[in-house]
């Protein structure tokens, strides 16, 4: 096993996903993502986590966010997908909820998220970890001024109705 793996040159799986970029650029993106992964693994904040979906491909991650304690989302766990573009970190990653999330700034069917740092406020100094933390805090503190899900925005001030809506859509992670 060792012998074989020793002789096989390292795979370059990103080639298929981002054929346009030069290997040089892909290498540095990979390096950045590798470092981010390392940081995330070693200094994980409670309740947030993410990991690449497939071995050899650092551009597609799966993430997990636990609802922050003391909010209506407490005790719920949400899965998200993170897709990094080949020119990351100059362009933000594409993120969506896989678990249906009833939230003023989240599209209930597609899982799209309306968050400024994922759009025009994006900066290269943000990382996976800051994104996850932002998302976690977004759960407790929605931006009702620009709702994506107006039903949720309207229900936000009535926790009982909101919770009922939330639980109707929510599916526990392990059944997903």
């Amino acid at each position, binding site marked *: 096993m*060792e012998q074989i793996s020793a002789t096989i040159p390292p795979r370059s799986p990103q080639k298929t996903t981002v054929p346009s970029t030069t290997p040089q650029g892909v290498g540095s993106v990979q390096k950045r993502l590798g470092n981010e992964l390392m940081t995330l693994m070693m200094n994980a904040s409670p309740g947030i986590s993410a990991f690449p979906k497939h071995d050899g491909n650092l551009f597609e991650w799966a993430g997990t966010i636990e609802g922050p304690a003391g909010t209506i989302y407490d005790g719920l766990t949400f899965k998200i997908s993170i897709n990094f573009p080949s020119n990351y970190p100059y362009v933000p990653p594409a993120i969506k909820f896989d678990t249906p999330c009833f939230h003023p700034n989240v599209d209930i069917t597609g899982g799209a998220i309306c968050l400024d740092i994922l759009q025009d406020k994006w900066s290269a100094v943000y990382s996976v970890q800051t994104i996850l933390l932002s998302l976690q805090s977004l759960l407790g503190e929605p931006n009702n001024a620009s709702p994506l899900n107006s039903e949720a925005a309207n229900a936000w001030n009535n926790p009982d109705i909101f919770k009922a809506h939330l639980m109707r859509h929510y599916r526990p992670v392990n059944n997903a």
Partner: protein
Amino acid sequence: MATEALRSQVGKKWQDSFARLNHGEPGISGLMTFSQASAWVLLTDFVRPRDLNDPAPPNEYNMELVKYAFDLVSQCRRLPAMLEAYLDDVRQYFYLIKRDVDQYMEQYETSLDPEIISRLVYRLFKWFNAWLPISDLGQTIRAAYTLDFQTQLFAILPPSFVSGFKAYCASTLPPFDPDVTQRTLSGEIWDIFEILGLLDRYESVIASVGYEHIETYVLSTCTGKWEAAMLPELRNWMSHKIVPWMLMMYARGAATNDDAVAMLASVGSRFDFHMTKTLCDLRTREIFDIIIDFPESAPALEDLKECLQRVDQRAALVKSLRKANHKRLLHPGADTKLILSQYVATIKCMRIIDPPGVLLFKVADPIRRYLRDRPDTIRSIVANLVGDEDTGDSLVDDNEPPQPLHQIEIEDYSDPNWEPEPIDAGPNFRANKHTDVLGTLVSIYDSNDLFIKELQILLAQRLLAITDGNTEKVERERRNIEILKIRFGESALQVCEVMLKDMTDSKRIDGHVQSQMASIVHPTIISKHFWPMLGSDEIIMPGQFQTFQEQYAKEFSTFKPDKRLRWLPHLGAVHLELLLEDRTLEVDVPPLEAAFIELFSEKNVWSIDELMTRVGPISKGAALKALLTWVDKGVLKEEGDGSFKLLEVAETVKPVDPAPIVEEQKPTVFPAQQHQAEQMRVYWKFIEGMLTNLTALPLERIQAMLHFAPGYDQTIEQLSAFMDAARREKLVDVREGLWRLTTKA
């Protein structure tokens, strides 16, 4: 056999023939005086073999008469019968020769003098000539006679003649020893050999004499002589000594030079081949020692290269070297440094012999595999990289310009200078023409990370060993790192850069602190995160040391308010002046020793346990060692009950034996292996991360995913054991081959 019956029969036929011939013509006077039967008798008598040992002179014959008789017999077509009768006679009389042969051979067997063989051959030649029919009898008869003579001769020659003949041939060869004069060569005897048919019959013997001679010569002149190219010399010897011999043997009949060259072409190339092969075999046997002697032995390698081009012995060379390596190098008795230097020498040697590197690849594989299993290989290589001054010669040639380490290159088929792999290259063969020796060494391992890590540790050791802010040494380390940067890349050695910066910063900070408040403490301030784990046995320095430390730390924190000093006292060194009642001692000691002796200024007798409670968590062994240092210096004295007493007045009875040399302790920096536990912790974080996000994974996926973790090098078996351990801890469980985290209750 000419019996009476035959004779009468022949006589009768003769009569008939004569009557027929004569046709009743009357006047042939010769015929009248020379009767038919007497012609036959005369002739057979004339050609009958005679005994050379017979003292009686040979009969005189009237040649006219003989000739006439011969014509007569010939005309009667009785010649075949005549010839047969003659050959019968030869056979009948051959016992005469056998008697002689036996006599000579007996002499030879007792004396083993090749000269006797030559005398025998001359004698045989004499017999041969004596019985040879006169040329007037025609070629047919002579040829028949020669053949018959040879057949008879070979039949009677005893087996010992072969060895005798061989010895004789050998004696005609040019001797190795220039003092011994060569036997004067006469072409004559070779002609005799030829006539007697010995050359044809014993051709293989003669060739083997030549081969053996060449072999002995090559072995005696070339064994162990590697510092000069032997091949040209051997060729020279061949053309001066062996070719004349061969000329006599194989090209006697050559009329012109060109003829001789043509005749010698095939046999000459065979002899040359044999010489090359002998040398090649010899060098193949010696290859291991030749490599040890490199570069003095470079000419021998050039020889070998040339030989290998002529003789296809590459496989044998690989086999021989691999065997020698296995027997003499790759065993626990050999020092890693030695194996490495031999490996490097092998690389260099094989490059001479076989530039494409096929041989090297085949030979190097076992060495590399062995080195990979040695725990201290990296350490040795790295130690060599940074050039320990005490290691003597460096593995890496300084003249070789450092090159960046290449990753495995994909073959560029559009390269117009592309060449296919050599024909005997194995399936895994990688032409590493671009990499230098160091690159080859580093490539023993799959990743450079291990090297970088070990490099950091070694650098830490060396930097901490520098005392008194010796900037020169720091500069040298910096230069080393700069060179290594070219190889490993800037970013990989960033940590080393920080370490070096720490050294200069320390000096600067120290300068500042000293200017504010002079202190005798000169700390090296290191950035914890960028240095390898340093041993952490925390000594609490007592008394004045502690005061010094605290004062310094205070001054430091005013200089750098956002930083805090954490002392690693066990890594330092203390210069002490001990003032005792009768004497003053100046010593340089490690901090623990200093801490102990400081405590003795409080009271004169301490038990070892008391001392240990004062300085903090240290092992008893370390404490005892520190105390014994003082005992050796005659400052302390061990009392019976595990306590030590300060000798204010030196004891009169000095220990007679000289104080043992205390081995200088290097700062304790853990080697890379001890990072493993730390590594496992990292891996567990990754496993946790992937299982959180991907819910459940089979072991193979986990193994594959773990390659995201930097420096992951565990096998799937190791991972399996690790996961099992985690399951016992109830951190994970496994269902249908899928691992998942246990859900937190």
